């Protein structure tokens, strides 16, 4: 008996992906969950300590501080990346050749590795040999201490992440904007809507799913922006940019407190999952309702 065309593929189809996910996704999470109840330096066998790691979490100032910095970083990344990516992406979706050329240049950071980007920007921010020194030569500004200033260091990281990830989200919006049916714009034009009104009332609502998908990627991704911070500031100056994932790394692989690091890791898993569930729930993304009824 052949299956009807509307029937979804059977369970067997997802087995390879599921196995892969179980092995590399769920498996480690389970192991980390177990390790979070142990004390283990990586030497010898993990020693069961019950809830000791968990009860130490609330009292650890760096966990609280790290959480606050992680949240600021997440919010700042979303606030900077989403509007800019939306605007540039919709602009780049236009049919003009010149836009295609400019977009191609904009997309270049996508080709670079995170480590390379972080090291290049670290060199550019260097007060005596980087951009600040040039600004001093040209405009007589005093060399600024961007990465060494507890307030500015976080903004510097947000900027580098923006530079790095903007092209990716632009690409999402560009592709999605090209999918918006022309008939909608034509109808709006007949009704006398201005270019901005068309953007606001047609493009943005039509891109809703893309906004949500891109936001989830930004929000959840910024819980794990680890390499950039490690290489740019290593959490410094002092604790100013010690995001929670970096604190976890340092607890685990510098201090060799694998058990405690695992507890932080589980916390991050819970936060990341919770955050993406929340976004999906609040935005109604999970209902997968069509945006183009009647078309």
């Amino acid at each position, binding site marked *: 008996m052949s299956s009807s065309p509307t029937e979804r593929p059977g369970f067997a189809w997802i087995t390879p992906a599921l196995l892969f996910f179980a092995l590399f996704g769920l498996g480690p999470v389970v192991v980390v969950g177990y390790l979070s109840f142990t004390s283990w*330096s990586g*030497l010898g066998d993990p020693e069961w300590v019950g809830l000791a790691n968990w009860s130490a979490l609330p009292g650890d100032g760096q966990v609280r501080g790290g959480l606050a910095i992680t949240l600021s970083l997440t919010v700042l990344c979303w606030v900077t990346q989403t509007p800019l990516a939306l605007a540039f992406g919709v602009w780049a979706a236009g049919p003009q050749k010149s836009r295609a050329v400019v977009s191609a240049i904009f997309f270049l950071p996508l080709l670079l590795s995170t480590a390379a980007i972080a090291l290049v920007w670290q060199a550019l921010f260097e007060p005596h040999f980087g951009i600040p020194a040039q600004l001093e030569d040209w405009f007589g500004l005093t060399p600024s*201490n961007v990465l060494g200033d507890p307030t500015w260091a976080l903004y510097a990281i947000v900027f580098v992440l923006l530079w790095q990830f903007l092209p990716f989200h632009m690409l999402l919006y560009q592709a999605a904007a090209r999918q918006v049916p022309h008939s909608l714009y034509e109808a709006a034009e007949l009704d006398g809507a201005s270019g901005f009104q068309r953007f606001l009332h047609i493009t943005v609502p039509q891109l809703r799913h893309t906004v949500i998908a891109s936001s989830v990627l930004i929000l959840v991704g910024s819980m794990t922006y680890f390499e950039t911070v*490690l*290489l740019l500031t*290593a959490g410094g*100056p002092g604790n100013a940019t010690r995001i929670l994932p970096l604190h976890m790394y340092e607890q685990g692989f510098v201090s060799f407190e694998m058990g405690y690091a695992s507890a932080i890791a589980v916390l991050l898993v819970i936060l990341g999952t919770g955050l993406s569930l929340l976004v999906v729930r609040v935005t109604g993304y999970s209902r997968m309702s069509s945006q183009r009824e009647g078309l």
Partner: protein
Amino acid sequence: MSRTYRVPAISSASLALCLTLTTGCGTSGPADSASMQVWALEDAAVNEIVEQGIDAHNESQEVPAELVTFVNDAYKQRLQVALGSPNAPDVFFNWGGGNLAEYTSQNQVYDMTQDLDDNPEFRDAFLPSVLDVARIDGSYYGVPLLGVQPVVMYYNKPVLDSAGLEPPETYDDLLEAVETLKEQGTTPITLPGAQGWTQLMWFSYLVDRIGGPEVFQAIADQEEGSWNDPAVVQALEMCQELVELGAFGPNFSSIDYDNGSASALLATGESAMFLMGSWDLAQQMENNPEFVENDELGYTSFPVLEEGAGEPNAIVGNPSNFFSINETSTHTDAAVDFLVETMASDEYVDELIDAGQVPAVEGIEEELQQSDHAAFAAFTHQLVSQAPTFTQSWDQALPPAEAEAMLTNLQLVFLQDLTPEEFTQEMEQLR
């Protein structure tokens, strides 16, 4: 201050990536039990020398040795996981002190005391202050593998000359020099404060000058209240005073050692002095060769604190790196033979000197005179052999968790975000 082998930061990133992908980089299969695995850090010049020692050993011995090398950051993690597993090395590189004590406390390290007593010539070849770094609870667990690396005060000769200054001999000289240089618009001292271990050099030297080596010894021994020692508080106050004076310039907290900018600041004369490990000479030769060739790079010991209780000749730094033997190795005898016949041999020591190192060995003044940088090598050797104590970099001597917290808190002290008293409280609470 783990520099010998301080890490291009990039390696930690690739490691992190690797860990995220597989939660462990996968090992290269069980060690071949017919051969002896020697683990060390990647270092083109030194690996070759060890390799030569291994070749010489392999010619005469039944159990051949094999050198396996790793990049710095990955190494500690790899070793931590491998020890006690079937993939463990037979002989392994380590930093001595607290780092080595982590492994001895888990009974992972072979006690070499008896072997050293059986080979007194071999034992006495090493500088005692350096060999002692691998002594834990009265037993020896390793032998020096590389040259000594004390922290010294570098200076830019033309800059000090044009300011009419001599290299500072006392701490008061230093403060005076700071004032004079500031008036001239020169940054008095380079401090790569993006990394806490560079600030630790100032802190640990000052503690040693104020209170002597006993202060840190008590801290390393985890004695109750040892962080509260008045010498610790006073040293931190002096650090903050230097920051307030502008001794390190306004931007020190962005300056990074690993990308070479700190060394460049001294070479270009933007700053006058730089407290750094002896390895910085290699960095200057590599990146700013004219500065070294024109004899503009000067060096001296850390200033003397006249009212301090510490010995004026005492030094701080990395005494050496060490080779230790795995307790569970099936080749301990072969490993002992290899270390005893190689690590203090004339060939090995000469090769190290040729590679620009100052081996932790007695009676090599003559050989050092003939090396490429004879003056610096002789200075370093004299500094180390005359030092009553050679305090290991605190971040290597302390357990990793305590070291990590100390470096972070120290950065906060230099940023004036933490008072010396808060620092000592934080560190004391950690116990």
